[in-house]
């Protein structure tokens, strides 16, 4: 019995380590974008995002390995957990992708979008944090996790509005270099995509909350 408990703890610890790393990547990217807004760019910080993504990959592999080694009583739970790992990994990958994009981004941010950039960046961090929290809650408390999903939905709406506010400002800059306009617009779009992805994952989790009692 103790042995089974230990095995369960190992799985939960592996999940926790993976979630932590996904969250760390997000927080590092969030920090870098804030620096970019304030005009203090340090490429070394972007490298940390890339490293965090690689670390998340390693933690993911370990989690998957334990997940499949462990003879769980619920095969569909293994499959659902695996899907969840894949989805969270996509967020981590997107963070890395944006980090790499920012590394080669040759311009400064426009002054008049900085407030909205800060807003969408805050929303991005908040959404990923809420999602990881929801994933953890799924283990023990469906009801609270379900409530959390509405919070994520609200965050997505905020992110969408902010993205279009930024784009509205940028696209009005007719006299600006088109390359600068194009590349700058990609940053809020990418941030929103990650928020949107997180909201899709929360939708998936909501479907699991509905599915389990009917199984």
């Amino acid at each position, binding site marked *: 019995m103790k042995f089974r408990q230990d095995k*369960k703890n190992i799985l939960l610890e592996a999940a926790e380590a993976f979630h932590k790393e996904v969250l760390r990547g997000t927080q590092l990217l969030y920090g870098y974008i804030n620096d970019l807004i304030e005009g203090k760019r340090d490429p070394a910080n972007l490298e940390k995002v890339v490293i965090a993504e690689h670390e998340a990959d390693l933690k993911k592999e370990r989690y998957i390995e334990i997940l499949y080694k462990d003879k*769980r*009583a*619920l*095969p*569909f*739970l293994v499959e659902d*957990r695996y899907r969840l790992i894949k989805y969270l990994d996509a967020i981590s990958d997107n963070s890395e992708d944006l980090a790499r994009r920012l590394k080669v981004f040759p311009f400064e941010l426009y002054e008049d979008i900085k407030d909205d950039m800060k807003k969408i960046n805050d929303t991005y961090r908040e959404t990923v944090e809420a999602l990881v929290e929801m994933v953890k*809650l*799924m*283990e*023990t*408390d*469906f*009801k609270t*996790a379900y409530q959390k999903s509405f919070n994520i939905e609200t965050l997505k709406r905020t992110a969408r509005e902010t993205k279009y506010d930024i784009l509205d400002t940028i696209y009005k800059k007719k006299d600006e270099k088109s390359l600068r306009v194009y590349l700058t617009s990609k940053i809020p779009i990418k941030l929103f995509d990650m928020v949107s992805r997180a909201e899709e994952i929360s939708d998936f989790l909501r479907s699991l909350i509905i599915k*389990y*009692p*009917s*199984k």
Partner: protein
Amino acid sequence: MAVELSILLPIFLILSVIIAFSIGANDETFSGIYGSRILNMKQILILAVIFAIAGALILGEAVSKTVGKGIISDMSYSIVITILISTSIWLILSSAFGLPISTTHATIGAVIGLGIAINASLDWSKIIELSIWWVLSPIIGYIVTFIVFKLLQSYKQKHLNGFQSYEKAEQRFSYIVLIIICITAFSRSGNDCSNAVGIVVGIGEIQINLLLLITGLSLAGGLVVLGRGVIKSVGTITELHPSTAFSAQIPTAAILFLGTYLGIPLSGSHMLVASFVGLSKASRTPVRKGLWKVVLIWFLTFPMAGLLAILIYFPVAAII
């Protein structure tokens, strides 16, 4: 008489082996374990073999059956052997296609066919009674599983919260299902062996334990060679996991036990298949394609077993 016995005994022994093999080949007891992935096929077959042999050795001795008793009067050896051979052939044929049938119904079909062919007096009221249960078995299985699943679902909604609690509950169900199915396999083996042993006991002097071991091994052989197809076919009728396998198999086993106690000839195979269909309806999960083949073989069992019995009886009667 001594000469006759020395010829008859090996023939009856071979027949006993074939009968046990055919019964093992059509044994779907472990299908819920397979479908819910509590164990894989290899583990299931190991367990099935252990319980088949143990059941035969421990419980087989206590039971000795006369096949067809109560339906046909004047049961001679040639009649008994014909019934057993035709039932075995039909069981092996359907098992080869992975289709579960009721051994009892195949036997009764053979008895009726033979009774008509040799103009023996048949107890039609008994046949009608059996036919009624033949129709009622799947209906009972369907309804009971539907109700048990709904009750279980309501329990889950009230008491379970989060992956971990679901996992814990499913683990408990998997232990319960595993224990009960092992007990069922054990008692079923003892009971099934009596069908095979029954024809040899009384023919001549033979070590009963050796005979039970042979039939137990044959039963296990049938399970390993053809039974895996039947287990796979029944276990994948609908999506299963431990708690749903519990809601289908446990009430079925309980009702079957009650039926046996009250002398009601319910069919375990029919009940189980219908239970899985009831489960799919209750849980709104699809039923596997090709279920019509199972239903078709159920309808064919009566006439085919009867026809086989007619074809086999005359050569058998000429020899014995």
